[in-house]
C-alpha cells in the first residue's frame, strides 16, 4: 500500500477554482461563490439588455419582464454551477399583443439572450406560421412539422399567430397533429429548443384554454402593450433616420396628426402602419421631386415634407376597404 500521509502535498487551492495565465477560472466542480454582477457583465446579457433599451422605443413593461427573466435565468445558471439545481427550467414563452407591437423583434433579442446565457446552443430564430407546420393532406403534417423542428434545434422556434394551429370548428383539422408533435418536443427536448408562441391576446387566451397542454408548458407570458401616440412619433423619426431621411417641422406636425387619425381607423397595426405610411410618403416625395425642379440637393433628397404626408388617404377619412361608406352617401 502506498503512503498517503500528508505533509508532502502542496497547500490545496480553494475548491474548484484554479489560477491560470488567464486569471482565476472555475472548473466543473461546484464553485464556492458566484459573482452575479461579474456574470451579468461577462455573459453579454448586459449588452443585449442595453441594446433592447436603445433600439426599442416604449414597451416599458416588456423590457421589465425581460429584465426579470434574465435575472431569473442568471440566478438559475449560478444555482446549477453550484450544484443546487439540475433541471433545465421551462423556458417556453408566449408573447401576446396587437400586430406591429414588436413581438418578432423582441423574440430575436430573446434568442440572443438565451444563447448568451447558454440555454440554447446556437441562438438562431426560426419564425414560422401555421402554413409551415400544417400539411394539406393526411400524412403531410408530421414530416412538415418535424422538418421545422429539426431546423429550430439549438435555437428558438417562433410561432406567429399560433392560435391558427387550432381550429375548433373542424375536428379533422391537421393542426391538431402539429400541436401534438409540438407538445411532445416542448416536453422532451427542453434542452434543445425554446418555443415562443405569439398572437393577439384574446385569441391566444382562447387557444390556451382549449389546449391546456400548452398552458402548463409555457412558463413566461409576456404582454405587449399598444404604443402611445408620442411613442409612434418617435418610432417614425427613428425609422426615417435609419433610412437616411429627416422630417421638416411641417412634416412632424402632419405626422402627429396622422398617428392620431390612423389609430381610429380600421386595421391599425401600430409600428407596422407607421412603416407603411413612411414608405408611401417616400414614394410621394420621389414623385414630387421628379415632377418638380430638375436640380435637387442632398437636403431636398432626404427631407420628407408636410405635403408628402398630408396627401395620405388617412386625412380624407381613411381607407374604405369594404366599400360600406360609399353606400351611406346620399
Amino acid at each position, binding site marked *: 500500500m502506498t503512503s498517503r500521509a500528508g505533509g508532502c502535498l502542496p497547500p490545496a487551492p480553494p475548491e474548484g477554482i484554479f489560477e491560470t495565465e488567464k486569471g482565476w477560472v472555475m472548473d466543473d466542480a461546484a464553485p464556492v461563490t458566484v459573482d452575479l454582477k461579474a456574470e451579468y457583465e461577462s455573459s453579454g446579457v448586459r449588452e443585449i439588455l442595453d441594446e433592447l433599451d436603445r433600439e426599442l422605443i416604449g414597451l416599458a413593461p416588456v423590457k421589465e419582464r425581460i429584465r426579470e427573466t434574465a435575472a431569473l435565468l442568471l440566478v438559475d445558471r449560478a444555482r446549477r454551477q453550484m450544484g443546487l439545481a439540475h433541471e433545465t427550467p421551462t423556458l417556453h414563452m408566449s408573447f401576446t399583443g396587437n400586430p406591429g407591437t414588436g413581438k418578432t423583434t423582441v423574440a430575436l433579442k430573446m434568442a440572443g439572450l438565451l444563447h448568451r446565457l447558454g440555454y440554447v*446552443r*446556437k441562438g*438562431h430564430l426560426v419564425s414560422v406560421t401555421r402554413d409551415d407546420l400544417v400539411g394539406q393532406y393526411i400524412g403531410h403534417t408530421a*414530416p412538415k412539422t418535424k422538418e421545422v423542428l*429539426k*431546423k429550430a*434545434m*439549438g*435555437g428558438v422556434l417562433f410561432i406567429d399567430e399560433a392560435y391558427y394551429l387550432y381550429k375548433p370548428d373542424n375536428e379533422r383539422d391537421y393542426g391538431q397533429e402539429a400541436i401534438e408533435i409540438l407538445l411532445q418536443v416542448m416536453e422532451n427536448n427542453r434542452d434543445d429548443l425554446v418555443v415562443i408562441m405569439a398572437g393577439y391576446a384574446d385569441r391566444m387566451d382562447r387557444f390556451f384554454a382549449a389546449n391546456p397542454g400548452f398552458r402548463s408548458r409555457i412558463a413566461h407570458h409576456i404582454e405587449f402593450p399598444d404604443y402611445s401616440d408620442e411613442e409612434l412619433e418617435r418610432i417614425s423619426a427613428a425609422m426615417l433616420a435609419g433610412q437616411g431621411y429627416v422630417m421638416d417641422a411641417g412634416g412632424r406636425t402632419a405626422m402627429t396628426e396622422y398617428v392620431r387619425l390612423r389609430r381610429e381607423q380600421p386595421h391599425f397595426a401600430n409600428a407596422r402602419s407607421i412603416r407603411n405610411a413612411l414608405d408611401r410618403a417616400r414614394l410621394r416625395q420621389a414623385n414630387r421631386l421628379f415632377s418638380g425642379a430638375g436640380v435637387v440637393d442632398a437636403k431636398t433628397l432626404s427631407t420628407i415634407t408636410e405635403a408628402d404626408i398630408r396627401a395620405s388617404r388617412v386625412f380624407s377619412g381613411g381607407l374604405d376597404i369594404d366599400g360600406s361608406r360609399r353606400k351611406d352617401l346620399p
Partner: protein
Amino acid sequence: MRITQGCFSFLPDLTDEQIRDQVEYILSREWAVGIEFTDEPHPRNTYWEMWGHPMFDLKDAKGAMMELDECRKAHGDAYIRINAFDSTRGWETVMMSFIVNRPSREPTFRSWRQEVDGRSIRYTHEMVG
C-alpha cells in the same frame, strides 16, 4: 467480417457523442447532412437507401441525431451511414461519409478466381451470410 468503408471505419465504433461532434463539424463547414442505410454493404453497391431528405439548413446537430434515432428504430439491424454533401460549385460531391450503425452479425465476402482468355484471371467478390 467487419466492414471498413468511409471515414473512421478502422477505429472502434463512434459513440453518439462522437457522432454528434462529427455532425457539428459537418455543419460548421456548411455541408448538408444525409442519412442512408442498406443491408447490402458490398463495395460495388454505392447507392444506399436514403432516409428522408438530405438536411440542408440545419443549425444544430440535434436535428440530424433525431433523424438518426428514427432510422435506427426502423432499421436497427442494417448498416447506416452519414454523408456530408458540399453543394458549392466546383465540388458538388460527398466530402465525408462514415458508418454509424452496424448489424449485430456482419456478412463476409468470398473471392472467386476465374481463368479467361488463356492465362488471364478475373476476380469477383460475393457476399455470403
